[in-house]
């Protein structure tokens, strides 16, 4: 983001220009559209059209709008959660001990299984109203968005630069001022990036969260997700196509209108003192800067934000050392009490889980089954990551070493990652049914459909960042062929690859629940795996098995992360950097 003012902008015309007109129209259209659909959310459930979906494509714009609004509502809640949970976990040593692992678990486990349970709760809040269902859907989307955002913020908070932290204390900023002047800006690039990831993650759950089944009742909240569900049920391939088109448009719109400008804007918060090569501003950002009214509105907003964030709320902290020492005497006692309480809660929870499973005719046999199924899903994830690596690493390296290609492919890969792969499921299902393929194998690629792109664009990023002098050394000594891969480029891109693979593997576990079962009208396809187990249990409303399945899956994911990715990541950062 450049701060130098272009002369043409400095002497901006006083009169609104043509961009102003376009911008105004856009803003008004948005307001009208939102105003149009909002009252629908407070209708009684039995009002006509409140909870049914028509496959007529002319309804799709409205459906798309409502789905988008739901997703942004969930995003807002996720941000709120991020801004409260992460600081608490980062600031308090004791809270952090519990809250960080908890976040790790929540992040790796799809809460989809508990959807029917939360639905009951939210419908109880607004009996007979659509709003209850809406909130349940928003909550489900929230559970797919919040964790990685909170985690990213937490990580930023624990890696704040020491000198800036000292500067805020030295100039006596209040906690509130410090939060907005140091904590949030420092976390901004990571937070924006994770918000984007969350948004695409959310699409995965839209289908499941908008079509809500509870016992014999099925409600379809108007939206793209339930439209797709309906189309799958009615075997309407044309409708699926329309839905994909609508979703494409929505994704392009919010990607272009919101995230591109956000990413470009957040670059100014990147904590580096060297001026990096400046990418071209996205057109929306240019529009905002050129449009008089939008700029004025932006300035007014910045002004208001400035006023609020510089309020001197809270007392400026004194010396950290003093506070710590003063507490040292009591901290032993506090620790004992704290850990005792945690231990009791954990034990009680463990007892509850065991008791719950045991008392609902879910025996140890089921445990054996879920563990075996877990290994089946694990095998799928491992094989898929390996395959994706074999395919995308050479391609990524090839592309990354050619800058003109790299930029184009980066954009495409990011878009593909944002595109919800479950929309393509129907196509797979049709093919599988028609050609009578083995569901155990043929359904497997679905898991990595959306997540493989992370490997691609991380490898591309790594290859483009590969130091030029090292490439020259390799050329100079005529290092070629397999030796070049083994000694030069693979170690060079390794940290980037690991980052991408971690994201891809996490995403694949999540996708298992949605992708190990697929249906097309009456044709139900199911692979053997833990994801399918959880999905079936959810369909049957079988809580004990949902609990068991989700618990076993969390353990698998955590163990997989700890045993494979963590050491790999540590190795990558230790070995492949000179510092």
């Amino acid at each position, binding site marked *: 983001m450049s701060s130098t003012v272009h002369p043409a902008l400095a002497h901006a015309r006083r009169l609104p220009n043509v961009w102003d007109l376009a911008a105004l129209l856009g803003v008004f259209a948005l307001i009208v559209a939102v105003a149009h659909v909002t009252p629908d959310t407070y209708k009684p459930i039995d009002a006509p059209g409140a909870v049914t979906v028509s496959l007529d494509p002319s309804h799709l714009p409205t459906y798309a709008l409502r789905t988008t609004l739901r997703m942004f509502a969930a995003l807002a809640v996720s941000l709120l959660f991020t801004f409260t949970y992460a600081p608490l976990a980062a600031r308090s040593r004791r809270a952090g001990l519990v809250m960080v692992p908890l976040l790790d678990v929540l992040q790796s486990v799809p809460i989809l299984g508990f959807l029917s349970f939360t639905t009951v709760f939210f419908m109880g809040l607004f009996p007979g109203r659509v709003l209850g269902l809406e909130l349940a859907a928003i909550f489900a989307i929230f559970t797919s968005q919040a964790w990685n955002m909170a985690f990213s913020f937490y990580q930023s908070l624990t890696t704040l630069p020491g000198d800036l932290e000292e500067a805020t204390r030295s100039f006596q*900023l209040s906690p509130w001022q410090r939060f907005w002047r140091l904590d949030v800006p420092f976390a901004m690039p990571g937070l924006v990036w994770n918000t984007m990831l969350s948004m695409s993650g959310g699409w995965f759950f839209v289908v499941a969260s908008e079509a809500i089944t509870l016992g014999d009742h099925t409600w379809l909240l108007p939206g793209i997700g339930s439209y797709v569900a309906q189309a799958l049920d009615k075997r309407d391939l044309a409708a699926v196509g329309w839905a994909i088109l609508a979703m494409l448009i929505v994704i392009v719109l919010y990607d272009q209108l919101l995230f591109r400008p956000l990413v470009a804007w957040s670059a100014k918060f990147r904590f*580096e*003192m060297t001026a990096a090569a400046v990418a071209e501003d996205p057109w929306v950002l240019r529009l905002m800067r050129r449009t008089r009214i939008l700029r004025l509105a932006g300035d007014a907003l910045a002004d208001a934000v400035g006023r609020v964030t*510089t309020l001197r709320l809270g007392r400026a902290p004194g010396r*950290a050392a*003093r506070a710590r020492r003063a507490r040292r005497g009591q901290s032993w006692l506090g620790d004992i009490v704290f850990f005792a309480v945690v231990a009791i809660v954990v034990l009680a929870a463990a007892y509850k889980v065991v008791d719950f499973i045991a008392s609902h005719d879910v025996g140890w046999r089921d445990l054996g089954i879920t563990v075996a199924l877990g290994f089946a899903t694990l095998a799928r994830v491992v094989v898929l990551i390996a395959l994706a690596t074999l395919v995308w690493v050479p391609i990524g390296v090839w592309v990354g070493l050619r800058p003109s290609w790299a930029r184009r492919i980066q954009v495409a890969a990011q878009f593909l990652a944002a595109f919800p792969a479950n929309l393509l499921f129907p196509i797979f299902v049709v093919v599988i049914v028609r050609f009578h393929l083995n569901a155990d194998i043929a359904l497997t690629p679905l898991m990595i459909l959306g997540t493989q792109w992370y490997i691609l664009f991380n490898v591309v990023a790594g290859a483009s960042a590969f130091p030029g002098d090292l490439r020259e050394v390799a050329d100079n000594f005529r290092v070629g062929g397999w030796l070049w891969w083994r000694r030069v480029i693979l170690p060079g891109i390794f940290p980037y690859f690991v980052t991408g693979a971690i994201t891809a593997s996490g995403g694949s576990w999540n996708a298992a629940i949605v992708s190990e079962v697929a249906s097309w009208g009456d044709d139900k396809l199911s692979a053997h795996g833990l994801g399918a187990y959880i999905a079936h249990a959810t369909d049957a409303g079988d809580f004990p098995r949902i609990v068991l399945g989700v618990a076993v899956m969390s353990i698998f994911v955590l163990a997989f992360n700890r045993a494979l990715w963590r050491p790999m990541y540590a190795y990558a950062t230790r070995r492949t950097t000179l510092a």
Partner: protein
Amino acid sequence: MDATTAPLLEVRACRQSYHKDSSADLLVLEDVNVTLLGGEIVGLLGRSGSGKSTLLRIVSGLLQPTAGEVRWRGTPITGPAPGVAMVFQSFALFPWLTVQQNVELGLEAQGVPRAEREKRGEAAIDLIGLGGFESAYPKELSGGMRQRVGLARALVVHPDLLLMDEPFSALDVLTAETLRTDLIDLWSEGKLPVSSILMVTHNIEEAVLMCDRILVFSTNPGRVESEIRVPFAHPRNRHDAAFRQMVDDIYALMTRRARPAVLPAVPAGDVTFATPLHPVSTNLLAGLLETLAAPPYDGRADLPALAGSLQLEADELLPLGEALQLLGLGVLEEGDLRLSERGREYAHADTDRRKAIFADALRAHVPLIAAIRRTLDERWNHRASAVRFREELEDHMSPGYAEDTLRTAISWGRYAELFEYDEEAQQFSLEEDHQTAD
């Protein structure tokens, strides 16, 4: 400058220790007394590890001393005091704020209304020579400009006391010099809205150039070793004979007490397992020994002259000299560095012989390395974990020091081929041929 008689700042019997549960405290500062009056520039001069930056943080209220008292205008301080502002060595600018916003930070914290904030911010920016850069982001500025922003940010709150933590050490020589002169000019003309300046430095010339008083710190534990008044009027001339003499005297002062005089054969009799080792590269040591042995020094060099010709600062050269002394290869005395007999032999030997001399010196004079080698010799598999040694060191010093000390021991021992080290496994081992030789 209106020098008032009542002291601005009083530090009484200040003591700072690094607390380690299992053993005695590691002393960083011991019995430090400092009084600061209005209208003076005081420099805290010392080597790295002498606790001078710690003292600055105590004065700024960022750190609470283990014992002792800090009085600001007569009242004990309990946190960052309103009349004290700090300039950081690393600049500590917020990359997402413009120059103007960075400068206004302290005023925002005080709740100064926006109009006044902007006015004062612009005044400070103009004063420090940054006019025209108000809307620039720090990353668009050069190092010298960035530190000017750091200065403006501190000055804008009109502090009574300006604290500077090695403010010019991250800058190149020319930029640093310009910034120093600009600051001193503003000070002499009475344009700085501050009453006193307390600055930390390890650069002797910088201290003599800028300060009215210099407090020289000793190391282990940090103590005010001596106080020197600088009587010269501003602007001062580096090439002035009296200026040079004072720089020489301070060098002598800082080396005189580096070690109590001991026999060169048994240098530094107080070296124990837990003596912190400064990370000094063996390449530098070898280079220094060669330089000393060759003309014009022929085995004896005057430290300021040596520092000048090698373009090293005092706190870079002194650890080298101390390392040589520790190993019995050189002797520090009265501002001179002298080669010992072994040192001379080393300088004239070939690579293998040098390694042998170095190995002997390490085993004789560095108990930590001797202990590592002994352990390896005793073990049947000739392997030992580094973790164990690190933990032992941490019983006696802070984790940072323990890390530095162990790293140094590893690098010295590797050079002398006393042992091998596997970074992945954090494990010492003996070389293969050593093992078969057993």
